[in-house]
């Protein structure tokens, strides 16, 4: 449709104008990456996440899908895939909201006030309800590990870094197991 693309262009431009680093994925103006800093006054402060935004065809009547590329520990964000619970955005979405709104208002609010009634990350939700301090600690740990500002440039999509240490050695031991016969 022709007129919504004007809307998309305007929204993208506005987003770029408000000092967010935006990187297009392809020329279709459907998906792009944005670097999003954690809101101050939250345990997410000081970290940066790369966020993948996908605008559906029916945008702006339908809300965009938001996904975190690098890991984040949050009750409403799926840890493995990084996708944000769609319902939470959809409930409050209006065609007059734009992308700047999402990054200036909606996401910070989500990070500051997670919605435990609809958790994608049940463990995080449970931890938050049970022991707030531990939850914040965990959040900070994840931030340290995965969301340092310098990480953003280097982070490839959806690779977890847990297994780095053991890869080489475990291979060799497995082979050993298979190879040698019992004495």
């Amino acid at each position, binding site marked *: 449709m022709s007129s919504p693309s004007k*809307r998309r262009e305007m929204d993208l431009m506005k987003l770029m104008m408000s000092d967010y680093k935006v990187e297009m994925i392809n020329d279709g103006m459907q998906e792009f990456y944005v670097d999003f800093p954690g809101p101050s006054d939250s345990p997410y402060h000081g970290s940066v996440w790369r966020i993948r935004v996908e605008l559906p065809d029916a945008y702006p009547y339908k809300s965009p899908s938001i996904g975190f590329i690098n890991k984040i520990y949050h009750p409403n964000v799926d840890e493995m895939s990084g996708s944000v619970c769609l319902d939470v955005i959809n409930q409050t979405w209006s065609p007059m909201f734009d992308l700047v709104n999402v990054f200036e208002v909606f996401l910070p609010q989500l990070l500051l006030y997670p919605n435990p*009634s609809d958790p994608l990350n049940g463990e995080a939700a449970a931890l938050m309800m049970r022991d707030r301090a531990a939850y914040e600690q965990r959040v900070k740990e994840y931030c340290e590990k995965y969301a340092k500002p310098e990480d953003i440039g280097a982070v490839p999509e959806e690779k977890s870094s847990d297994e780095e240490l053991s890869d080489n050695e475990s291979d060799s031991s497995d082979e050993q197991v298979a190879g040698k016969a*019992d004495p």
Partner: protein
Amino acid sequence: MRKAGRTGVRQDQRHHHSRLNEIDENWVLRPSVDQEPNLIQTDLSPPSSPSTSSATESRIEPITVSLLVSNRTPRTRQNFKWVSKNRRAHAVKPKFVKRSELGSPNNEVGSLNSLDSDIGSLSIEQKVNTKQEKGGDEEEGEGRERGWRETIEVSESVEDVDGIFSRLEKFQLGVEEPELSEEQLRINDQLQGDELLAMESIYGDNVFILDRHDGLRSFQIHTHIEAPSGIAITAMLNSSDELQTKIDSSDDFSYSFRVEYLPPILLTCLLPKPYPSHLPPYFAISVRWLDSSKISNLCSKLDSIWREQLGQEVIYQWVEWLQSSSLSHLGFDKEIMLGTCGKRLTGDRRAVSGISSPDVDIPLIKSYNDERHLENFLTNLHECCICFSEYAGTEFIRLPCQHFFCCKCMRTYSDMHIKEGTISKLQCPDTKCGGMVPPALLKRLLGDEEYERWESLMLQKTLDSMSDVAYCPRCETPCIEDEDQHAQCSKCLFSFCTLCRERRHVGIACMTPELKLLILQERQNSSQLKEEQKHREREMINEILSVKEILRDAKQCPSCKMAISRTEGCNKMVCDNCGQYFCYRCNQAIDGYDHFRSGTCDLFPQEVIQEWEERINPRQVLGQIQAELFAAHGQACPNCGQFNAKIGNNNHIFCWACQVHYCYLCKKIVRRSSQHYGPRGCKQHTVG
């Protein structure tokens, strides 16, 4: 005049006289070039008499005359012609009347001369005469007298062009227009024509040319006063009839509002032949929101503008002055005080005031303002805040909450929500507004089919929110439930139990589904059953079986009894139907995670944790399986304490929990296996 009625009239006449004197200062009547009593008075005066008119005084009278005469007529120009014809007829009468009424030859002579003061009386007599002629219709005469007064007092229809025009013609009657040479007339005519053309080109649609009457040009110009930053209008709300010229006590209630557009000032003009060389145009100013005295003030100003440049065209100056300076001249440039319609005003007869009372005037002004705003909106381009395209105002839809969006966007928005079924979100798209979209508008936006769907969804939603609504098992109409689980359908009069949806069974418990199932299944085999009934019961069987199946796996929400089965996630369930949180393990309604903290129910069932761990760390599963398989031999990891099984004979153990290698024999962490195992160190493969 000895007769009472006429005396009364005469008093008024005098009164009028004095009023005219006041006006006369500003509105100078040109002395006739030759003192002939022709022109308007032609009809009246008999042919012979030379005029010995006392010029000044008598000139005033004709106005009276014309007023009185013309008052007999309804305010249409056609009738006016009739009047003029009659005037001719009346010319005969005076002789007759005077002989009978006056009896004095002097008077007779004098009154025959149109410009005598007695002409006033003549015309009165004329009036009376005609009244008598008509059979002495008292009422009519009085009506006439009253009507004459009424021209000043009661606010007339400002829009009544004919009325105003006839007034102008009255003015004309009262003026002795000078005779002009052919040349002069031609020049004037030319100038007038040019001026009118100029006016049309400057003011465009705001100039209304009226039909030429007697070959004279006449028109009405609408002067729009606009205040882009708004102008305040204040109305004093008090019960007094008197015109208040200043704000009195603070006890008076006043009402103020702002507008950007004011109803126009109408300047109606009749151009006489001696304009612009000798006479100004006859004009009347009509304003809906000014009282007579203010308008009279404006009239005076117009007079003085004329006087400043006698002999030149003046209409443009007039209109420009009205447009730009009239408000400030009245002291109204910041705020307009709405006057009241006073009953005893002494105003210029060229002032036509539309004021009546605040409860009429205020809505009038406001609605004009709104109309103009709307017109302005419709003709201009606006940007829709959803799609950022520009359209003319006519392409926009405005909701009752005053937010407006382009038709296309509203249509797409509505369509999407109807398709998705999310009609509860079908409200004003504005982020904070949430205003309702009126159904009539929806009908226009959506097609018939979609509108029907919307209606049924709305109905459904409303009914669902009402807890005591049950659907009749036979005809599916919604019914209200009474106490005791009973409802009666208003359509088919079926009285049923809301729990089991069978016929009402007072005192007996509902049939259990199992029993029902058995009975139905039995009946399937019966030969007596008609095909249709058999089919229906077959459906019922299927339904019961489905419910059975559902209930096998699923749990029911403790508040709305909706069957919910858990496919993944934790045991804290939220019912999609009613929003109630409940525990899947024990089916209790809960609130938050506290329930899982204390004891009985786990938040995550074991298999879910297992799955999650599998996903997170495949080695864990492997490790756990191995631990099970080789349970006999295993060793806790020196690093994290996790028990790991020794696999086969291999003493080199890999801890799945912390990913460290250690030796089964010496229980130490092994960093380089080649170093650790060898002839000198531990043996890597041993049995046991």
